[in-house]
């Protein structure tokens, strides 16, 4: 029993995906264990979605090794997909059908009986809090509702791994929180989640462990807390400027922080004691438009690793 528990649900070694001249995924290694919420964090074009599609058995790897549920995605695609749940980046719902019909027809693809599906559909629709809309057509639903329906649908076969590609991209903050809440609830029930995101707050919220991806490669791996500890400081002081910060600022803040990042309209000071650093700023007579002391985030980790921000400014 001990050994089968250790067998990762997804295992990649030297995994590659190439499209003609473009290398989308450039030799990555990772393992996803049962019950884990594992994330791929990175900007657009980092290779996250290509990786997800390879795991979902809809994109054959160009090189390296990939095992999903111990099987080979190229040879055993149908068998693997029968045990996965997929929430794609763009909804693939049928807008003309009702919420309930969408769940049921999707369940039919898995070969489940209509009777069984009716009961399961009701439970899942309730789980994603759409019971009031169960018999309305999908088209007029909000983006957040559609996304929750896609999540309900992806759970119809009781998946062993749930793949979520950018689960809250395009949703407003309130709708994102509802989706996060539902995903948390799945996590507590012991589900294995695999998600991609370019939002550091989403990665912090949901992931037990994550890899930071950049240009097809893995730049770092660990839990959100570990990554922040390893690649950043406890706190960050942000100096905001109405225009580009003056270049000499880098020398004038010397000694106040462990590291300084100059961005287009702000300067980040990495420090273990934000308040003391902020006091120091005032002491040196610097006058930014505003000074903000905050906790370090994965955004800072990403910035440190790649020299770029996650979401283009």
């Amino acid at each position: 029993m001990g050994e089968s528990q250790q067998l990762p649900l997804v295992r990649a070694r030297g995994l590659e995906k190439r499209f003609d001249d473009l290398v989308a995924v450039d030799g990555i290694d990772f393992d996803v264990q049962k019950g884990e919420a594992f994330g791929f964090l990175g900007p657009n074009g980092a290779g996250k979605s290509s990786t997800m599609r390879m795991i979902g058995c809809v994109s054959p790897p160009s090189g390296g090794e990939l095992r999903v549920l111990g099987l080979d995605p190229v040879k055993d695609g149908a068998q693997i997909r029968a045990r996965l749940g997929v929430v794609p980046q763009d909804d693939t719902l049928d807008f003309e059908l009702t919420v309930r019909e969408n769940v049921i027809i999707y369940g039919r693809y898995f070969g489940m009986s209509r009777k069984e599906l009716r009961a399961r559909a009701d439970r899942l629709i309730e789980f994603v809090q759409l019971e009031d809309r169960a018999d309305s057509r999908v088209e007029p639903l909000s983006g957040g509702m559609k996304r929750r329906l896609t999540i309900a649908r992806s759970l119809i076969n009781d998946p062993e791994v749930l793949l979520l590609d950018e689960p809250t991209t395009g949703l407003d903050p309130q709708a994102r929180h509802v989706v996060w809440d539902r995903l948390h609830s799945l996590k507590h029930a012991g589900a294995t989640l695999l998600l991609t995101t370019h939002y550091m707050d989403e990665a912090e919220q949901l992931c037990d462990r994550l890899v930071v991806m950049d240009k097809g490669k893995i730049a770092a791996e660990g839990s959100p807390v570990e990554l922040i500890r390893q690649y950043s400081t406890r706190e960050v002081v942000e100096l905001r400027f109405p225009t580009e910060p003056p270049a000499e600022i880098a020398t004038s803040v010397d000694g106040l922080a462990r590291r300084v990042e100059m961005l287009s309209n702000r300067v980040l000071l990495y420090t273990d004691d934000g308040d003391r650093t902020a006091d120091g700023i005032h002491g040196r007579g610097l006058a930014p438009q505003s000074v903000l002391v905050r906790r370090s985030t994965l955004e800072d980790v990403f910035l440190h690793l790649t020299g770029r921000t996650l979401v283009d400014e």
Partner: protein
Amino acid sequence: MSYALALRSYEFWLAFYKRTWRGSLATSIVNPVFYLGALGVGLGTLVNRAGTTPGGVDYLAFVAPGVLAATAMQVGTTEASWPVLGSIRWTRVYYAMLATPLGIGDIVVGHQLWMATRVATSSAVYLAVIAAFGGIQSPLAVLALPACVLIGVAFAGPMAAYAATRERDGAFVPVMRFGIVPMFLFSGTFFPISRLPVVLEWVARATPLWHGVDLCRGLTLGTITWSSAVVHVAYLLVWAVGGVALAFSTYRRRLLK
């Protein structure tokens, strides 16, 4: 590909059709009534008076199997164009199916089975209307139904293969304008191809529609010979099987990147 899985994707198309079946059923009754009324009865009166139909057959009985075969072509082509591109670009239902145990083969075959069903139902209605107009002269006419399904797939296969390579539905316009419409007019549907200039007669002979028209006509008039039936069926099978095989490959290239 497995038939059990293909049937699951077929079931989606059935559910999809439930929204529009009324309109489409009305079309499949109204169309043959119009065509047979205008051409068979209206124009037919003039043609019959001239006494120039091949074998002296009544013009309605001559033109009806032609339009029947041409309708099978049109239904097959239409069902394989917008719905296929839409399943990739608009509703993205192929991608939804690919997230489940269904594979490329199941998706292609399930959809082709559905197109064949649409051809079968509209052709059955068409045959009934022809019978009501008195245009059927042989019990062999019942075999025109499977013949129409074969014609439908001979067009639906290649068309689906093509549609899966396109980005926009504008790509269907030239196919209709330079392929389907000329075939509809010049493949022996309304007049024997022997009336065409020799070169064009051979072009017409190469079209799958002419083989379909000649096959259906031989069956509803009861003039079919074994040898011509075998040639027509074999030729249409090449288009159907070749088209579906091509669709396997274009779907795979499009959907499994």
